[in-house]
């Protein structure tokens, strides 16, 4: 071979060798990337499933508040019974910050994996147990006490779950896609509500071929089914979580012996970290919490109790809206990796506080029959007696009037009156008029659209917040530090939204939209603080 040829050959050889090296390097990188991607999806899948189940467990209690009231609290005063359940519901939210402290501390000391495994066991066990408790009629006062106790355990467990799942996923995620990967955890709360509504509706309608009988069976014993099936889901999730590995960043701390010995003191006893905890609460989670609970819970309560839309429709409206809006958690989470977390979250808050009143007002005007054309020929009036366990069959008379409208809507008004002539005056049974509406097709989809917009705001404020919180705090005290502001913001400010908003409507009865003042004021305050004090920087390193 000529010198030239050798040179060329060498060059060729060199090039082939070099190309081969690139090719094998590329292949190795690709394999590595595929392995990592597969790994992170396993982490997300396992974490999300457990978190979704915990939200499901938590929500079925709230969704069945009225049924539980009749089962576990004295029936002599239904309002008191309902309030007791709502108070129990609120207690479930209020203990969440304590759960955040207890399990956050554990998670920073013994690890993320075993801590959120423990929360899952507690949540699943208490949900299953609620489904087994005999009613007030069977065991008396022990029934509401046990329910309250189990509800408190649920609240504690939830307080520990979220921080663990968000931290665990974030600590597995690459820095440039942290918002995207953690946003999958963010979908679980909404999907948990979706599943709980679906299971309740399905159970309510499948216990008997006759709808009325099926609902009666559900109210009697069928409500236990959604609680009991939870155990199957929890067992599967525990099995999956047991196979997961500990967070790599926590493992690193463990190996190097730099774990926190007192996470509570380091999180809240040191000014430098405490000021960030306070900023996270007042500049982000407080507003996020009220936007979330207004969009998903107060909206449902408003549709059912103020607009008087019937039980099934008010729930299917929410189901559709959730279905359409849920992908946006991932959209906004992913977008936050590009433009930062701050302005997406605060943008959602701003849109919410500016548009809440017009959106809710639109729902009120849509159900106003005064401008609708009634199909008078279809109007019907039926009289009957109401059989109750307390009074004879002819003691309570009901008159039911049905009005049909050209747009497909139906208004049912039922008057209940006690027969004073036969049975005397009963002050605890005043004449009652109940109204219930079924929406026509166009109004139904209008409601779906409005609730979709409300949940879209939720996806804006909630989608990026896990990444935002994770990036604020150091690994050794992350679980504790992020859990507390999250659960005060969501559990206290957010969780009490339907309760406080409803309370406002009972104090200021003239304005049906007065309940919205609570999320508007809290959200507005949070927005101002967020704009002033939070920065939009994405922390590329969370391993320090």
């Amino acid at each position, binding site marked *: 071979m000529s010198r030239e040829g050798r040179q060329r050959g060498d060059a060729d050889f060199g090039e082939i060798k070099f190309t081969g090296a690139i090719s094998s390097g590329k292949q190795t990188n690709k394999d590595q990337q595929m392995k990592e991607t597969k790994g992170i999806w396993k982490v997300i899948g396992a974490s999300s499933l457990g978190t979704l189940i915990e939200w499901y467990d938590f929500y079925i209690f709230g969704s069945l508040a009225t049924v539980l009231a009749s089962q576990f609290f004295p029936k002599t005063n239904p309002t*008191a019974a309902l*309030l*007791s359940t709502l*108070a129990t519901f*609120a*207690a479930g939210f*209020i203990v969440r910050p304590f759960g955040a402290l207890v399990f956050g501390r554990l998670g920073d000391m013994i690890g993320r994996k075993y801590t959120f495994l423990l929360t899952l066991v507690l949540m699943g066990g208490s949900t299953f147990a609620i489904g087994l408790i005999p009613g007030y009629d069977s065991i008396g006062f022990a029934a509401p006490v046990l329910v309250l106790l189990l509800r408190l355990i649920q609240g504690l467990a939830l307080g520990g779950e979220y921080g663990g799942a968000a931290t665990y996923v974030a600590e597995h995620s690459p820095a440039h896609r942290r918002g995207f990967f953690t946003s999958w955890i963010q979908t679980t709360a909404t999907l948990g509500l979706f599943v709980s509504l679906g299971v309740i509706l399905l159970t309510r309608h499948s216990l008997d071929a006759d709808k009325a009988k099926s609902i009666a069976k559900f109210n009697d014993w069928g409500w236990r089914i959604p609680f009991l099936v939870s155990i199957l889901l929890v067992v599967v999730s525990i099995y999956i979580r047991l196979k997961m590995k500990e967070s790599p960043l926590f493992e690193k701390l463990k190996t190097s012996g730099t774990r926190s010995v007192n996470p509570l003191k*380091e999180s809240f006893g*040191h*000014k*430098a*970290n*405490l*000021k*960030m905890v*306070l*900023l996270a*609460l*007042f500049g982000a989670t407080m507003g996020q919490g009220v936007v979330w609970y207004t969009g998903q819970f107060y909206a449902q309560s408003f549709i059912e109790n103020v607009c008087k839309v019937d039980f099934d429709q008010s729930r299917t409206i929410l189901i559709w809206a959730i279905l359409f809006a849920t992908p946006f958690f991932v959209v906004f989470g992913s977008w936050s990796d590009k433009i930062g977390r701050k302005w997406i979250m605060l943008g959602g808050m701003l849109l919410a506080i500016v548009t809440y009143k017009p959106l809710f007002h639109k729902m009120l005007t849509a159900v106003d029959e005064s401008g609708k054309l009634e199909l008078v020929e279809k109007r019907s009036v039926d009289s009957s007696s109401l059989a109750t366990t307390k009074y004879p069959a002819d003691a309570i008379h009901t008159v039911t009037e049905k009005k049909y409208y050209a747009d497909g809507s139906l208004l049912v008004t039922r008057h209940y009156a006690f027969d004073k002539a036969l049975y005397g005056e009963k002050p605890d049974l005043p004449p009652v008029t109940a109204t219930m509406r079924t929406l026509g097709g166009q109004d139904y989809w209008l409601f779906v659209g409005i609730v979709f917009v409300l949940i879209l705001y939720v996806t804006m404020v909630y989608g990026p917040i896990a990444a935002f919180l994770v990036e604020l*705090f*150091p*690994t*050794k005290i992350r679980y504790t530090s992020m859990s507390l502001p999250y659960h*005060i913001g969501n559990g*206290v400010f957010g969780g*009490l939204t339907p309760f*406080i908003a409803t*309370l406002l409507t009972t*104090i200021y009865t003239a304005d049906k939209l007065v309940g919205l003042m609570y999320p508007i004021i809290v959200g507005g305050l949070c927005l*101002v*603080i967020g704009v*002033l*004090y939070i*920065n939009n*920087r994405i*922390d590329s*390193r969370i391993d*320090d």
Partner: protein
Amino acid sequence: MNQIKRIAGILWVLLGPVAVYYLIQTAASEIAKKPVLDTKIQWGVFVVVFIPIAIGFTIFGWYALKGEYDHLPENSEELLH
């Protein structure tokens, strides 16, 4: 911007006690209006839960006023020491 952050801090410091006063006053008036157990529990829970939060809000305002938020930490070292 830092000046606005500090001035707003005065507002947050004042807002905490004002919120507590308004909360207690509303709770007392609502309980007096309807002195049943439910009202007492309900407002009792609100007072017990929101007072520590209002204290936290005042501390937040104090930090803002002192310029603690003029510069936010950029790494964990700044938070831990």
